[in-house]
């Protein structure tokens, strides 16, 4: 849920900004929500619902991930008139690029996996395997295309650790900026 925190933080910051400026918070209407709904629904089926994800072969799940990432990047482009969506869209595009370049999975190095689960024996971390039901695939840096866009930035939050990509950071910043701007003056 780490990226959802960007929504929460941006909303809180925007509401405080509006309150300090004695303004109304101005919610916006995003366009082409059907594209968002279809993309997320395909990911829910392939990655989140236990009843469906175990029936879907990895090759199909990878294809579903690439197509849904592309749809989400297009969704951001179709909403470029909104502040912050250029950054969020760039983040979605970067994630799509690295996922598409690595067989439909987000690559993560064994070193980064070790940082996430420090108590797991080193010998049990193998390369070239999908990490359970996640979007991630363990690959060495040498065999990863666009490695600088992979899940490689490890942060700690509330006793948990998370690995994020450059695209994830851009998405978080873009969404934060959008929600912050809605609490500002109309022409900001």
């Amino acid at each position: 849920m780490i990226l959802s925190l960007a929504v929460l933080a941006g909303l809180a910051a925007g509401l405080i900004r509006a309150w300090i400026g004695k303004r109304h918070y101005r919610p916006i209407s995003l366009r082409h929500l059907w594209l968002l709904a279809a993309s997320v629904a395909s990911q829910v089926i392939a990655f989140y619902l236990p009843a469906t994800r175990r029936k879907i072969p990895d090759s199909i799940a990878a294809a579903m991930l690439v197509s849904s990432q592309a749809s989400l990047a297009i969704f951001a482009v179709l909403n470029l008139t909104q502040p912050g969506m250029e950054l969020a869209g760039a983040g979605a595009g970067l994630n799509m690029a690295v996922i598409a370049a690595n067989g439909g999975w987000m690559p993560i190095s064994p070193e980064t996996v070790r940082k996430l689960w420090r108590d797991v024996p080193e010998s049990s971390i193998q390369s070239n395997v999908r990490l359970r039901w996640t979007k991630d695939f363990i690959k060495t840096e040498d065999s990863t295309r666009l490695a600088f866009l992979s899940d490689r930035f490890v942060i700690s939050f509330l006793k948990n650790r998370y690995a994020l990509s450059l695209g994830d950071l851009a998405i978080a910043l873009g969404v934060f900026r959008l929600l912050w701007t809605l609490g500002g003056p109309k022409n900001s």
Partner: protein
Amino acid sequence: MKKSNSRLIQFVVMIVSLVLFVIGAGAPLGGGSGAPGHGG
């Protein structure tokens, strides 16, 4: 429908949409003491 109601609906739809967007477009990985999971 009252203007305040439609504004509230617009607000809720916006927040839900943005949460869905970050969950879908993002690809963080959650670690720690539990099993591997989506970082959403």
